[in-house]
């Protein structure tokens, strides 16, 4: 019974994580693109006319609006598949999380709860299998909508996904050779050591070419610019999701981001050490838990105070400029940050001997590692956004040429060289 | 036979059902693509049998055999669909009854 409860808890954590990051990512996409293009971006939606959080309320407002929008189904569609497609996309995007380890383990006495949802022997092959299914949502939507543009989007994404799956598989196979295991958690554990004594033994240092191949294929698999041929606004209006509106469209939209978060999680797990904190393995973290906690609390207090001061300055500067309640926002946020700073300082005082005990140290290490995973995932999620607003879309023949004529030979080369090196080094 | 625990017979029965459905698809449909898919279905049902026996005997050889069947199925699908595309280019149909050049 307890095991089921723990499994449900882990699934819940993952869902909360995905949906929170999803909201942040949609905000980051809009705000980030705005900043990249020298605009300000969304900043109008507010809670109670005060809290705007620089536009972070917008995704929430969008979802609410889409929830209450009329659910229009065009007349000529294949209703069953049309309705199913967004769910397929969303489910497949979420299911991949099952094998992703987001932390080492929780140690409760002599009980060990590994922080991943499913203990699958096939591990990384599961990722490949589910990724290979992810094309169906788009094809289903494209075909069932009974529209030329959606159909073309579906066809394009089929060919694209088949092509880039192979490259992804080759990159992953090379990784299998390096780590000698199909389990993602074993791979992450492997990456905790040091290479040549100073470099974390991350996949990206062992497999630099493989990383570039994997990253490129992941961009293609998630239908993200520069490979978002399935959408191709300039040619296909919006590709496979033209005929969708309201919450069904929102599902497609969110699934795109969810799959990006999964991809970011896998990039960080396979090539950047997952939950491992570079140079600090679990044992070191536990031994110096008190010190780390104290330092992080001090840093937190200082930064919170800094933010509070900046916000107070801004409040003083902007007071009377807008003439309504919105100008209270810096004040409110400043107070929040000030309280946070006080909390940090209070915690420093309370925990001043900084002796957490064995159990506490283990929990502290786990929390730090989960945070490390989250930070890495957030960074790679941001990378998706950054690349999207930098690179133009590929032409279709360029996409195919890149996939088959350049990445496939390079992937094979990488694979064979890795195999030879592993064989010789053994 | 229908007791609580599932045994080899259950899997064999299921596999037979799937195989027969596949056979029916090949016999009654004239759409070459659906016929192809029925053949894939039959291959899968055979895989199910192999795996069930493999599990029954506690041996891994069946798994290897299934992998070979996968490879053969992939090869068959590739060549078969290529031929189909070529036929469609020439005849503009996938109806197998129209492909009777050798009979005439």
């Amino acid at each position: 019974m307890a095991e089921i409860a723990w499994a449900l808890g882990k699934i819940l954590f993952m869902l909360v994580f995905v949906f929170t990051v999803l909201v942040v990512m949609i905000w980051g996409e809009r705000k980030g693109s705005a900043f990249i293009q020298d605009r300000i971006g969304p900043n109008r939606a507010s809670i109670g006319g005060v809290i705007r959080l620089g536009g972070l309320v917008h995704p929430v407002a969008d979802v609410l609006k889409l929830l209450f929008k009329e659910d229009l189904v065009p007349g000529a569609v294949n209703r069953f598949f049309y309705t199913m497609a967004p769910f397929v996309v969303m489910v497949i995007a979420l299911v991949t999380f099952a094998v992703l380890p987001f932390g080492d383990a929780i140690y409760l006495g002599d009980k060990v709860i590994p922080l991943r949802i499913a203990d699958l022997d096939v591990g990384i092959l599961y990722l490949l299998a589910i990724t290979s299914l992810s094309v169906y949502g788009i094809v289903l939507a494209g075909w069932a909508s009974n529209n030329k543009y959606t159909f073309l989007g579906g066809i394009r994404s089929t060919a694209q996904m088949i092509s880039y799956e192979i490259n992804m598989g080759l990159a992953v196979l090379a990784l299998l050779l390096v780590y000698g295991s199909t389990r993602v958690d074993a791979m992450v554990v492997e990456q905790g050591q040091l290479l040549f004594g100073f470099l974390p033994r991350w996949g990206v240092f062992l497999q630099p070419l493989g990383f570039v191949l994997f990253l490129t294929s992941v961009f293609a698999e998630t239908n993200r610019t520069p490979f978002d041929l399935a959408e191709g606004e300039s040619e296909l209006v919006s590709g496979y999701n033209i005929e969708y509106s309201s919450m069904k469209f929102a599902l497609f939209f969110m699934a795109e981001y969810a799959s990006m978060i999964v991809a970011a999680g896998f990039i960080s797990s396979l090539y950047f050490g997952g939950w491992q904190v570079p140079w600090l393995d679990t044992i070191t973290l536990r031994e110096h838990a008190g010190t780390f906690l104290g330092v992080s609390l001090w840093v937190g207090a200082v930064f919170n105070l800094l933010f509070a001061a900046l916000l107070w300055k801004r409040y003083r500067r902007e007071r009377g400029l807008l003439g309504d309640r919105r100008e209270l926002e810096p004040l409110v946020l400043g107070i929040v940050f000030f309280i946070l700073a006080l909390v940090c300082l209070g915690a420093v005082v309370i925990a001043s001997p900084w002796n957490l005990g064995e159990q506490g140290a283990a929990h502290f290490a786990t929390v730090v590692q989960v945070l490390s995973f989250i930070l890495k995932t957030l960074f790679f999620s941001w990378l998706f956004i950054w690349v999207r607003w930098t690179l133009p879309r590929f032409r279709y023949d360029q996409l195919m040429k890149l996939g088959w004529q350049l990445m496939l030979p390079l992937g094979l080369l990488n694979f064979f060289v890795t195999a030879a090196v592993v064989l010789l080094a053994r | 036979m229908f007791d609580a625990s599932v045994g080899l017979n259950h899997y064999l029965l299921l596999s037979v059902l799937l195989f027969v459905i596949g056979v029916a698809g090949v016999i009654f449909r004239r759409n070459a693509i659906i016929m192809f898919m029925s053949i894939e279905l039959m291959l899968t049902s055979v895989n199910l049998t192999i795996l069930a026996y493999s599990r029954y005997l506690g041996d891994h050889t069946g798994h290897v055999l299934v992998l070979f069947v996968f490879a053969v199925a992939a090869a068959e699908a590739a060549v078969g669909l290529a031929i189909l595309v070529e036929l469609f280019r020439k005849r503009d149909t996938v109806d197998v009854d129209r492909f009777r050049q050798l009979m005439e």
Partner: protein
Amino acid sequence: MPYSIHGPQAATGGKGSRMRGAELWYLKEIFRGMYVTARHFLTNVFHMADMPTLQYPDEKPNYGPWLRSRHRLMKREDGTPRCVACQMCSTVCPSDCISIVAMEDDRPDVEKRPETFTIDLLRCVYCGMCVEACPCDAIRMDTGIFEIAADSREKFVVDLDFLLNNTTDGVKP
């Protein structure tokens, strides 16, 4: 960094679109592009106040005195309209949006005054011809109001009373 489209990269599309070596990977250009966008992003994050964007409903652009905005009718010192209903403006109006019904005025020095004076703001093209044509400077387009919105077509047809009291502080129709 000035980004030239006429550099060596531009030539890759030529000669049968054959790409060579490192160009095929686009890697160098990708990193250059990422650098450019990252620079813009960071600049804007840390200097948000310097962004050229105008927060429109809160801040309004200053168009200067030559802006032709919503019309107003001038008054005499006693509060009656300065307009003498000569029909010059409605005659010259290219979109035919002004309609005036004249009536006789009792005062000895004034011959006529408008009984009704309506402008259809939806038809008006804001050309300013009426202002030019008016012989006694009765109509002006200097209110500075350029956001003209209402929830029905009827509300866009403004009358004498409205135009007389249509001051520069932005009363909505």
